[in-house]
């Protein structure tokens, strides 16, 4: 038996193995949960950062940019909420971001 024979045997023995459908389903479910949690953490970060007035413009803009792919409805809602923000202060801004973040999440299927 030569080294070449051993390599041939190794190729026959160590073939790639397909994972079961059950593993794939379970794993994809867990990863979806993780991405949802991460999205919520991001929304929380946005809300907390807005307590500093210097950051007020940034998170809303970020949500608009990030959610652009999610559709025009979100943008419309941002505009509506931005009007409220101008008259309603911090509480309205927080509500706006929370609503938009929720919309983005729903539209992205999270």
């Amino acid at each position, binding site marked *: *038996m030569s*080294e070449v024979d051993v*390599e041939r045997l190794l190729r026959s*023995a*160590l*073939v790639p193995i397909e*994972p079961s459908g059950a593993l794939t389903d379970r794993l994809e479910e867990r990863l979806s949960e993780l991405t949802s949690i991460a999205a919520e953490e991001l929304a929380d970060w946005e809300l907390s950062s807005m307590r500093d007035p210097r950051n007020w413009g940034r998170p809303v803009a*970020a949500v608009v940019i990030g959610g652009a792919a999610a559709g025009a409805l979100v943008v419309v809602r941002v505009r509506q909420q931005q009007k409220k923000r101008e008259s309603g202060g911090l509480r309205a801004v927080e509500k706006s971001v929370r609503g938009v973040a929720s919309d983005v999440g729903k539209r992205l299927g999270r």
Partner: protein
Amino acid sequence: MDHPGDKDKLDRDFTELYRAHLRDVYSYAYYRIGNHHDAEDLTEQTFLQAYRHFERAQRESNGRPLRPWLIRIAHNLAANYYRDRSRKPQTPLEDADVLSTPHLTEKLVEGREEVQEVLAGVAKLPDDRREALIMRFALDMDNREIARALGRSEGATKVLIHRAIRQLEESLKETAANE
């Protein structure tokens, strides 16, 4: 991560990585551990941990493929698995699944015996040699990728694989002589 757009891109990239390498991670875990149940657990833990550190890994990869990083996570988790449970790798018994090409009946029986012997020989190798062979033959990784996954130089990896094959060759010769 600055905004949701970044996160969407990151999630899309991770999904690609997952789809491209799920079979690699599972194959590695199965041959490393020797049973499907624990291989599934190891695969799951590997991807969950990879997701947590994906942003940083992507940032630091400088465009290099992330498969070695992924396999390194599986490698570390497998090491913990043995350390925590004081287990030894098992010889895979469900080898009927790994015969992928059709054979005539007598060839099939002969092929199964050969496969059993090779898998038993691989299981007896030292951890680093066994892992290098799994990466080379089951995952079709090249020396550079294996070196990154094992945290070695390419030269050392080449030597490692050569020695692993030589040791397996001797082991198979001994088995044949004893039959």
